[in-house]
């Protein structure tokens, strides 16, 4: 079976100006959303307390809110989590001496207040200092990953590809974070992990394309750089397509079957696969082209020294 049967080379690079503007607009809106909407950071980063409880019957949020208010937790945010029997209560950072005991307190308040059998599903408490540190570490990790990848790709391919792929990765990360900001989805540690996985996936794609471009620069004699990039993209398009499908299939399984805790992770990756595929064509390749990638930069020069192949006579 064959989904894409391409006889002709698709002129990808002809649209690169338009795509560049499109990408820039997207990135700009991501930045705007990040500065106005901000990122709704999860407990991992902000610190605070989270309690997830399960009830036998559908929970009455109003009653729970009243209970929280009545017991001195007026800042509590009460929400359903996944189903109407699961409730999540979030509390912000507190100055109390025994902040780590809050979770247990709320649990007993719920138990006595609702008269229902309350099942403790999850308590998380994160101190403020931990959140700050994590923020720092997370940012640092992202940066280290990008730099390491830059070095590896520059070493294996060429600096123009390296710059192209790192810009593509930056593009993907920014857009994914922007999406989370725009939709107001919670950004926690698993989402950060998903973003690093997006980096992995997007890079995978970029490398496959770059590899083919390098190969074709060496193999095909005619045609300018843009033409050769078009040929390479067309040749790899079928593979790009199939791999995206299989990855999307498993991500769909995660999204629909993986449960609430994995939802953010799956969302980030689902989106990441799309932008990652797009960016390896229109960001990584286009940037490498704009930086002036050419036959000469990819074929190692052989310096011939006159008389090097002559037999030598030594006295």
């Amino acid at each position, binding site marked *: 079976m064959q989904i894409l049967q391409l006889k002709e080379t698709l002129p990808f690079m002809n649209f690169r100006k338009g795509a560049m503007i499109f990408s820039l607009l997207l990135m700009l809106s991501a930045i705007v959303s990040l500065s106005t909407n901000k990122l709704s950071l999860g407990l991992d980063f902000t610190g605070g307390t989270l309690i997830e409880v399960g009830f036998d019957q559908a929970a009455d949020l109003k009653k729970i809110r009243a209970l929280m208010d009545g017991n001195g937790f007026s800042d509590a945010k009460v929400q359903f989590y996944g189903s109407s029997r699961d409730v999540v209560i979030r509390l912000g950072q507190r100055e109390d001496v025994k902040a780590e005991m809050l979770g*247990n307190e709320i649990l007993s308040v719920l138990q006595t207040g609702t008269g229902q059998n309350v099942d403790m599903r999850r308590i998380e408490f994160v101190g403020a200092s931990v959140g700050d540190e994590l923020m720092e570490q997370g940012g640092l990790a992202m940066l280290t990953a990008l730099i390491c990848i830059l070095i590896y790709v520059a070493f294996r391919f060429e600096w123009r590809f390296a710059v192209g792929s790192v810009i593509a990765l930056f593009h993907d990360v920014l857009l994914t974070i922007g999406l989370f900001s725009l939709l107001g989805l919670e950004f926690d540690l698993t989402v950060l992990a998903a973003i690093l996985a997006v980096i992995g996936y997007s890079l995978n794609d970029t490398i496959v394309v770059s*590899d083919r471009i390098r190969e074709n620069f060496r193999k095909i004699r005619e045609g300018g750089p843009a033409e050769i990039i078009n040929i390479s993209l067309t040749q790899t398009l079928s593979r790009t397509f199939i791999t995206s499908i299989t990855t999307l299939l498993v991500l769909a399984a995660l999204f629909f079957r993986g449960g609430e805790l994995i939802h953010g992770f799956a969302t980030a990756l689902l989106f990441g696969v799309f932008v990652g595929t797009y960016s390896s064509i229109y960001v990584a390749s286009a940037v490498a082209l704009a930086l002036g990638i050419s036959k000469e930069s990819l074929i190692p020069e052989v310096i011939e020294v006159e008389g090097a192949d002559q037999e030598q006579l030594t006295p």
Partner: protein
Amino acid sequence: MLNKYPLWKSLMVLFIVAFGALYAIPNLYGESPAVQVSGLRGVEADAATLDNIKAQLSAGNIAFSNIALEKGQVLTRFTNTEQQIKARDLLDDTLGDKFSVALNLTPNTPSWLAGIGGTPMKLGLDLSGGVSFLIEVNMRAAIVKAQDAMVGDFRTDLRGEKIRYRSVKKVDEAINIQFRNAESMDAANSFLKKRYRDYLVTDNDDTLVLSITMTEQKIKQLRNYALEQNITIIRNRVNELGVAEPLVQRQGKKHIVIELPGVQDTATAKEILSATATIEFRLVDTEGDIGSAIDGRVPASSELYYERDGKPVLLKKRVMLTGDHIVDAGSSFDEFSRPQVNIDLDSAGGSKISNTTKSNIGKPMATVFIEYKATDRKDAEGNTIFEKKEEVISVATIQSRLGKSFRITGAGSQAEAHNLAILLRAGALVAPIQIVEERTVGPTLGAENVQLGFEAIMMGFGLVFIFMMIYYRAFGVVANLALGANLVLIIGIMSLFPGATLTLPGMAGIVLTVGMAVDANVLIFERIREEIRAGKTIQQAIHQGYEAAFSTIIDANITTLIAATILFAIGTGPIKGFAITLSIGILTSMFTAVVGTRMVVNAVWGGKRLDKLPI
């Protein structure tokens, strides 16, 4: 001939997959509820304990399926949790406080598999349920405490050397000593430099001030010491909690991770972790009659205590010294290579003990360890009641007037001396601790997560299977075989490595690997199709397809591996689990997708004349 694998290569592939399958098998056998009995504070469970437990269980009419003594612990397996709980309650009551009784789930791995090191995968707390704490050691307090001790030490030293000074004060990071004249400052300068090599001494001739700071190395040493000490103490306390497989581990420069699988009552756990222990030195009352004291007639100035082994001992009420004066304690050997415990006190403690011991030479001195332990009982307001537990951990004769540092000899074996040193240090925590992160997962959520993760893996797998079979026909089946082998290898390797833990994000990592692992095969198959279209012979196309795709696959996977490694370095708990499964998945998928599929392709289609390929 093109596309033929030598026999050894095919055998190697089969062997590796079989090896992975062998170590993946233990995961199929489930677990049974068990009760684990282990000794506390150096006591080991032995054959007598085993017999005792057997007798208790049969007396209590509780049936068990298996009982065994392993590594100083008695493990009793039951067929259902009801009997397990009953047995736990019974044993907890009857075995006394020398043993900890914990609920456990033990794998039903057959003995032949266990014999070659086969165990099921370790589940993370988000799957098994339980609580994890991140504890921060207050390093600032440790340093301030050390500085306070320095102030006292300098005063005593200068007075001892008869060097006159005006004041010794703590100023920010430094200790400043103000002198009246340059001579005494110079004398102090050369004296202190000689005596304290890990401090930096700088003098100022104009103001007549000596400024002393700790070297970077000294501060580092201090921090390390504070962390190590806290870890030791926490480990001791955790062992008494009666948790089956606790984990206490250092993380970074000032954090300690504690994982307690299966623990639901986090309130008690927290109270125990933040409980305090102290040490007291007291004189032994040698005149009082111990026999009548046991009967209740204790002399007015004394109190009755018990040693570890239950031996009664009468101690004077007056406390000679409390543990907060202890700066350090460690074990070593004396000149006759007998184990000894060295104790260092701060200067105030030194002069105190010196005063009290000078008139008591030749008399025995006892060390009392006091700990506040949480009990099962609660008071009217629902707070856990703490029980003060006092225990005499050592009785030694005062040989001479003691000073700032002294030693206890005759503490028994080297292990006992070491233990005593730890307990002594526990009485003087150099740095307070604080719980900065807590994650508790209830058993229902844990079980649900396992179920969801399993379903997601199966569904993702199924979808990719069907797709590949439709799209690549026979070659799709080969890719699917590789995918199956890949899953088996991931599980086998995860089970084999003791450090690898399966978490919910880790399961997501497996699902993701499934999706991305087929990428290598897609690359190869697409290449083969291209080569066929370009007019190559079938055999050449297969050969070229694998050759050309190989370097791409390597490059693509190495870069993903870089991202996974960084994730592993920064992540904790569940995220680390994700990084581990992702890394293992990348490595195994390269093997199965490149070498594994080639073996099958070569065996089925290689080395013959073919006009068409089912791809």
